[in-house]
């Protein structure tokens, strides 16, 4: 149905090769969270990968900073319709964190300080597609944007890039996370506009 909104002209200008359908380009960095911002001291911070057999691999903040650091330069897309182009981050590739982890799991759940969870296929976290980042635009990542460290999975809607991340649990089956249980799409590909369950 091609209903026209009389008198609406809109503002073009976004690059359709980089702005997914239904998104607009934002020049600031809006925030979407479901509750208060957790304040996590890096002295207390740890990141843990737990396999489907219960084996855990953990890093303290200093150990995490001692791993190979990468500098992803990516576009990000939030389900609330803003996209932000050319963002710069520093962090550790999930490939690095999984290098010594034995697992046959197909899925992962990211867990955050504050209780937030989100689920992803493991193949979307590997092969240079995902990082645990601690720096944005040259500055330590602010708490309201997920600091001290957040997951960064730029090819999926940004709710998958869990803020205040503290670990990944590898699971044989798909286990829907917070927004996924609340009606959002299980996978969340912005280029296929997978916003809500059933899209």
């Amino acid at each position, binding site marked *: 149905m091609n209903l026209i909104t009389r008198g609406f002209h*809109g503002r073009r200008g976004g690059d359709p090769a980089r702005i997914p359908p239904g998104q607009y380009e934002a020049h*600031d960095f*809006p*925030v979407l969270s479901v*509750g208060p911002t957790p304040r996590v001291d890096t002295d207390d911070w740890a990141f843990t990968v737990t396999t489907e057999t219960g084996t855990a691999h953990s890093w303290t903040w200093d150990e995490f900073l001692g791993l190979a650091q990468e500098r992803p330069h990516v576009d990000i897309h939030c389900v609330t319709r803003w996209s932000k182009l050319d963002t710069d981050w520093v962090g550790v590739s999930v490939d690095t964190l999984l290098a010594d982890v034995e697992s046959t799991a197909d899925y992962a759940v990211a867990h955050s300080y504050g209780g937030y969870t989100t689920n992803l296929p493991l193949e979307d976290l590997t092969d240079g597609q995902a990082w645990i980042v601690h720096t944005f635009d040259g500055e330590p990542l602010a708490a309201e944007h997920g600091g001290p460290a957040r997951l960064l999975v730029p090819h999926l809607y940004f709710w998958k890039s869990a803020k205040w991340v503290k670990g990944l649990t590898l699971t044989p089956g798909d286990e829907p996370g917070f927004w996924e249980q609340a009606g959002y799409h299980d996978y969340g590909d912005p280029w296929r506009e997978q916003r*809500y369950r059933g899209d």
Partner: protein
Amino acid sequence: MPSWTTATLEADRWETPTARTLVLSVPGWAGHRPGQHVDVQLRAEDGYTAERSYSIASASGPDRLELTVQLAPGGEVSPYLVQEFRPGDRVRVRGPLGGWFVWRTADPDPVVLVGGGSGVVPLASMVRERRRTGGRALFRILYSLRSPDDRYYAGDLGAASDPGVDVFLAYTRSAPPGSVRGAKRLSVADLNTHGFPAEFTPLCYVCGPTGFVETVADGLIALGHDPRRIRTERYGSGGGR
């Protein structure tokens, strides 16, 4: 899941010189839970579309819903919806959306609602739904606004028809003549005085611009509220809503 459906502007109300309530006729609309939002899609003659999310302001009901849109100067969608959109004009909507920033009418727990600016919109839906359903849960609303001229729903929110709903207006730039509090930012002392004590384990809903929500949520935690009882909705400064 939710499919797009046609919404026609039926009536409107000006809440302030820059905020307009749109009464939309949406045949087949089945109602919503207070706090939820809808996606709105506008289509230009050449097929270009723009979509934004807006909180629902009205109580739940069939075949119509109300949105309040604050003009964001320089924005793409809100100037159209506030200044151009006329009765009989049409957009498409889909929803209701969002399953977390929602108040359940059957929940007897006391409720603290804290809204900053246009963040009062989903909170108004909760108060109106409470009224519609004859709810008895105790509500305390803290509404932060710049001046008396910026007040939404003046004749409605905090009306005498809502026993058990207290409304505190926190003016941040200019207060009415004779105000004892004067004009200042909403403080932890305000939250302490006009909210419920943490011992009552109220549900807290906080909605507004990011900085406001951060400050209020931190203040509630400082007063001993359980972070898991605090639900937030932040309006990005990107002009999205």
